């Protein structure tokens, strides 16, 4: 062994991480122990190894002691492996003569017995010392990056990300599932706390997307397959037929007027079924692109082929309507992807005690957004389903949030949304408004001030989670009303409050198909089903898959400003990647020692990337290192042991195993 690697001189560094490690692990004892291990020339402990002086210490030792291997025992390699490799490299050593030991996440943070934690740290350090012995100098690997970017989801996050990337001069593909971009924000009436009209601030950005020369906008489309990896993703997008040619339709809407259905009779998705639309429709007047769409489930022509096609006549000269339209597929190549697929609201039918779906005057917050909106189904009149102006309205917070039985998380926006709606309802109707809350969460610029404003407007704040909504009157004053039974925890007694209208502040949850999206793009999900960021504090937009970023509520509940900020961050990451022009990969690829290959072909079908080919002439297998992603599956399977993996050589892992078990 030493013949191959010359004299091995190892330096071992044990990090205190302040007290994060040192409080549980006797770092001094570990360092002293490490000094006794074969090949170790110097072993030290230090308060913060990742700090400049810490790195400087390693570099100085490399020079002073002619170290040719370095082991750092500190946090997880996912945090600082890169840092230390670079430090080692700056001191003139190959960066891969380095091994990191995780004694924080895997030791001091999960154990409390100091003695046991110290022993564990020693075992892990010993394993690393024995492993690093076999490390080889490796070349850094780089792949070129295609500067084009794909943005998935056309809500406010996707729109902002797309515009930011496009403004930097890169090509952007924006793919949206619905017939228009705009997302949930387009359905909101006002935005908190400034009460800006949502449409007024959103629609200019929507048109900017449509007009931007660098943006290709595909609505009514879905990503169906993703191949490749960072720098070169190959993506297939399905474009669903809208039975209207986007390039010809000018959005005059005469076809809608002409449709044989004189009455609109199909639930209008944009207004959450509070109004009706025709089979040919436009989701809302400012829809982008401003192109009508035909609902194949409702259109007589598409269902039976027997319609007099009045729409076709109305569109005569333009000929934009095309009943023969079929779905098409577009293949694109991009270097990175921003996912901003948003959320769905909690279905309150899951909590039957609130009577949603049973009592007509129980609404969700999103429905009330449409009711208070001047262009909504009631023209901005807040009226109950039976047409009355409510005299008392109750808004119930945390519906499907902070609840072990439904969703455990706080949805973050409902408190402010409810304050806003309380203000608007009061403004529109003069009703007594009750907000039933558990905790009022108004953290944000200007939010607490808005809370104060609503308090002063005389909205009643009842601290208590409503146990049930019934229509069961126990008192003449309750006849014909919905009654909220709730403990007013501030006064300490149970109250019955009669209401004309109940608004459920439904929480935010992952889209129904988030799991499919997660698999499609090869990213992770957290326990709650929202997409998983690389680091909750320091990398809240990158994912564990290089070149894929997440933005907006698909990563976790957040309000509009936070979504916009995260979208900008994702865009900046994508732009930085494109401008760098390359991405550095771990050099952990597999390779084959040709002399030892028996030509059995076991490895060939194992590789999911078709990186292994067989040379029929030489009867040997060969790994294409450009295609290899470094999983090591073929290495483990090779019967002759002729396939090796950089960074994970057999002897490296065997010595690690022996290292952790040396005392067993």
């Amino acid at each position, binding site marked *: 062994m030493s013949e191959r690697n010359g004299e091995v001189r190892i330096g071992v560094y044990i990090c205190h991480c302040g007290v994060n490690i040192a409080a549980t692990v006797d770092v001094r004892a570990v360092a002293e122990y490490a000094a006794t291990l074969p090949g170790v020339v110097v072993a030290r402990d230090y308060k913060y190894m990742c700090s400049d002086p810490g790195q400087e210490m390693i570099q100085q030792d490399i020079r002073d002691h002619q170290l040719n291997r370095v082991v750092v025992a500190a946090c997880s390699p996912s945090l600082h492996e890169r840092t230390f490799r670079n430090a080692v490299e700056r001191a003139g050593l190959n960066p891969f003569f380095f091994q990191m030991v995780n004694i924080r996440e895997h030791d001091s943070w999960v*154990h409390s017995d100091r003695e046991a934690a110290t022993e564990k740290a020693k075992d892990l350090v010993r394993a690393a010392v024995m492993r690093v012995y076999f490390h080889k100098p490796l070349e850094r690997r780089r792949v070129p990056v295609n500067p084009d970017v794909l943005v998935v989801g056309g809500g406010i996050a996707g729109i902002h990300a797309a515009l930011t990337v496009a403004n930097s001069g890169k090509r952007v593909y924006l793919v949206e599932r619905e017939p228009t971009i705009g997302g949930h924000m387009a359905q909101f009436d006002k935005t908190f706390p400034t009460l800006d009209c949502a449409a007024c601030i959103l629609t200019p950005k929507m048109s900017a997307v449509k007009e931007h020369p660098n943006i290709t906008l595909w609505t009514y489309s879905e990503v169906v397959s993703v191949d490749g990896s960072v720098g070169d993703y190959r993506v297939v997008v399905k474009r669903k037929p809208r039975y209207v040619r986007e390039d010809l339709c000018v959005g005059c809407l005469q076809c809608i007027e002409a449709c044989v259905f004189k009455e609109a009779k199909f639930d209008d998705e944009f207004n959450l079924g509070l109004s009706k639309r025709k089979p040919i429709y436009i989701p809302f007047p400012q829809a982008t692109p401003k192109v009508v769409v035909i609902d194949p489930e409702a259109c007589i022509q598409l269902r039976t082929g027997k319609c007099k096609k009045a729409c076709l006549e109305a569109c005569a000269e333009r000929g934009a309507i095309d009943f023969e339209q079929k779905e098409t597929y577009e293949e694109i190549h991009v270097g990175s992807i921003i996912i901003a697929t948003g959320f769905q609201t909690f279905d309150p039918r899951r909590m039957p005690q609130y009577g949603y779906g049973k009592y007509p005057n129980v609404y969700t917050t999103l429905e009330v957004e449409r009711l208070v909106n001047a262009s909504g189904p009631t023209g901005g009149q807040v009226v109950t389903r039976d047409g009355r102006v409510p005299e008392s309205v109750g808004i119930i917070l945390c519906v499907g949030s902070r609840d072990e039985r439904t969703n455990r998380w706080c949805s973050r926006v409902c408190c402010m949304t409810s304050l806003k709606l309380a203000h608007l309802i009061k403004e529109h109707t003069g009703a007594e408004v009750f907000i039933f809350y558990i905790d009022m969460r108004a953290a944000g610029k200007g939010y607490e001030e808005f809370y104060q404003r609503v308090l002063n407007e005389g909205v009643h704040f009842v601290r208590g989670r409503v146990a049930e909504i019934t229509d069961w009157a126990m008192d003449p004053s309750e006849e014909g009303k919905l009654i909220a039974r709730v403990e007013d925890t501030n006064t300490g007694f149970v109250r019955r409050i009669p209401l004309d209208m109940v608004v459920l502040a439904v929480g935010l949850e992952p889209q129904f198909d988030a799991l499919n999206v997660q698999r499609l793009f090869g990213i992770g999900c957290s326990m709650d089903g929202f997409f998983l960021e690389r680091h909750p504090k320091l990398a809240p937009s990158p994912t564990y898959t290089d070149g894929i970023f997440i933005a907006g509520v698909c990563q976790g509940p957040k309000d509009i400003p936070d979504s916009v900020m995260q979208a900008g961050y994702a865009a900046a990451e994508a732009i930085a990647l494109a401008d760098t022009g390359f991405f550095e990969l771990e050099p952990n690829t597999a390779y084959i020692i040709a002399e030892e290959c028996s030509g059995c072909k076991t490895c060939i079908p194992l590789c999911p990337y078709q990186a292994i080919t067989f040379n029929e002439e030489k009867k040997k297998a060969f790994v294409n290192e450009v295609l290899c992603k470094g999983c090591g*599956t073929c290495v483990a399977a090779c019967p002759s042991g002729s396939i090796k993996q950089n960074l994970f050589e057999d002897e490296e892992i065997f010595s690690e*195993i022996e290292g952790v078990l040396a005392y067993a």
Partner: protein
Amino acid sequence: MEDKPITDQLVTSADWEPLVVAFFCNWCTYTAADLAGVSRMGYDHNVRVIRVMCSGRVDPQFVLDAFAHGADGVLIGGCHPGDCHYVEGNYKTLRRYHLLKRVLRDLGIEEGRLRLEWIAASEGEKVAKTINEMVEQVRALGPLRLTRRFKEWDAELASHEAEAQSEEVATHA
């Protein structure tokens, strides 16, 4: 003798602590273990984690080597089926795992000493739970201590050989 599990023949000493070697894939289970750390979810300390890029890299020899060097149990952690960072490495692991179980059975090592678990990056709690369960299970099975067994067998073999030799010498004499 071969039919009985090896551990039956060993006396459990009072100070014995089980030791489990865990092979965790870089993308799911190792990350989940990091998450367990960040969330300070305490778990049994008798585990040593070795990181591999994919559970598919876990060569059956690694497992046997770990047992041979004194591990009382081996835990393999990979991504959930369908979630593998390398498309389908974990399926290969599953196939090997079943084969390995048979090999272990033939060697007289209890199947409970080897466990494969799918743990996603978000499942820190599951890491803690699985490790605790595994350590407890191995504790219940008692020490495997192949290293010591090997020494005993070697000694036995050596004495047999010595006997045989002396017999040989005797016959020749």
